[in-house]
């Protein structure tokens, strides 16, 4: 039997936001309306479950824009699969946070 992790609505929203191109913690907060105390711990758990992965942006990019470098997050293939399953479970997810492709449609 396939063991697909069943995500909470919050975790599914975060995955959807990442898929929609909101790749920083604060931008996910702004998009979802969730507080920082929810978003960051949830992202750590998702990272622990290898549904997302994080990476630091290059220092040169941050220096050019005169700001500190940020850590950004990306969906992993497993995360993308889980998000697909979550979209079936939470049908309103895509309407709440549309991706670029969905917007263009």
């Amino acid at each position, binding site marked *: 039997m396939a063991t697909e992790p069943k995500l909470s609505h919050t975790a599914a929203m975060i995955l959807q936001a990442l898929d929609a191109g909101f790749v920083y913690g604060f931008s996910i907060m702004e998009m979802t309306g969730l507080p*920082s*105390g929810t978003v*960051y*711990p949830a992202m*750590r758990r998702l990272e*622990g479950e290898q549904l997302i992965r994080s990476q630091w942006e290059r220092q040169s990019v941050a220096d050019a824009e005169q*700001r*500190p470098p*940020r850590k950004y997050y990306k969906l992993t293939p497993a995360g993308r699969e889980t998000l697909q399953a979550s979209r079936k479970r939470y049908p309103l997810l895509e309407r709440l946070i549309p991706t670029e492709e969905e917007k263009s449609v």
Partner: protein
Amino acid sequence: MKPPAEWIHRILDLSLLRCASLVVPGKQRSEWWREWHAELWHVRQACAPEGSASWMGEREITAFCLGAFRDALCLRGDFGKRTRPAAVFQGSAAQCVLALAAALVASYAVALLLPGVRAERSLSPRQVSPGLVLIQNAGYSDDDLPTISPAQYRVWKGRKQQYFDGFAFYRVAQESVEREFASSGSREQESWEIARASSNLFVLLGLPVKFRSPEAKADSSLPELILSEKTWKREFGADPNVSGMEMNVGQRRARIVGIVPDDSRGLPGNVDAWLLQPDSAIVSSGVGYAVAHLTALGESEMWRPRVPITVYNSDEPEDDLLGISLGEGTPEPWPVFLFTVLLAFLALPAVTSVSLGEYSVCSQRPSWSKKLCSWGFLIAKIALLLAIVNFVSLDLAYARTTLASTQAVYIQLVSSFSLCLFGLRWVFKDQRQRCPVCLRRVEHPAQVGLASRTFLAWNGTELVCMGGHTLLHVPGLPTSWFSTQRWLYLDTSWEFLFAPSVAGPRNELLSGWSAH
């Protein structure tokens, strides 16, 4: 240039983040700090850009920073799980004892910090002689007012008494004192509340005079000055070598011969120092306080803390006086505590079952050594609880007062009894929910059956020991056939569920257990 309010907000936000970072495990701290610091920069740009800071924006930024604590706690929790895969410590007897010990240390630390508790402890056990009364004029409602004249005192002392076998007198007045500082040679003049007292006052009271040196006593040419503890600390920095020093009190030279503990024996007058002098030196004018020691006959008549006394004078109208018991008005904290403990033990069956609920579904019983451990744990919990209650009740009673007041005794009585009663209730309840084998708290309560079918099938709650030793069945409604909780000792067929190698499935299964 940034306005000062903006700087304050920035410092506050960074301080919050820095505090939260202390919760994060050391290995992850630097990266965690880097991420939150960078995000804070962006949050500030979005919510309160430079020059257009607003109260709402700052509030949002602070809320963002407060979220860092939750993230840090999550990381700490995950780290804890990784470092203790079996979560052996959680809910264990050791954790419980350590938590109680920490509470005890905290309550003791508070007791050390509160001056009222310190004063009370330094006086304990009180050494005031029994059978002492303060004699006051019955016409005054305030016991603290001086009402006895030296002439009255002399008359009583000169007469043969049936009820009293010793008298002492003192009168409090503000007097100037002059001290010399040996180091600088300078002199300092101050005004103190000086009690000029009969030389036998402290002998009569039976109070210990600290730091009394034999040399100081041997030189009897100078009057003896005894400092109160507060004056000793305030003026002499609690110098233990103060005994033997000389100073001018009024017009006379006096020698400090010791320190007497403050307050508490109920002697009125806020005295800074006691100047002992013979009765012949007591000035006849003014009024003061008289202290008397009761004979055996007098003690039998002193059946209340306040007893009226009538003095018959041959050629003058009789004096209506009041004998106020000293030292008995305010009981000491330790007997009060013991009394409340006794009361709490007596009242305990009214608030909880005192049974430890060690009934087994099957014939299996824990070994004697396990039983001994269980009893040892229970006794340790009770001992720690009582010590905590003692200190917490003292903290509460003497938090705002440095005197052994009636109010403090009442506060101690009520707080000690309440804490003791509900603490003992918790101890027994906790003990009933401890696995008899490993003393860990049983977890994951699962509701079984329906309350509406109590008489058709079993209805209650089942809890499991995370060590895999036992199941606890607690009836929802006690019946004649299932009145108290029962333990089911799990056999080896359950081991796979609790084996460390299948930690994942175990958690999954137990999550399901809670849900059904």
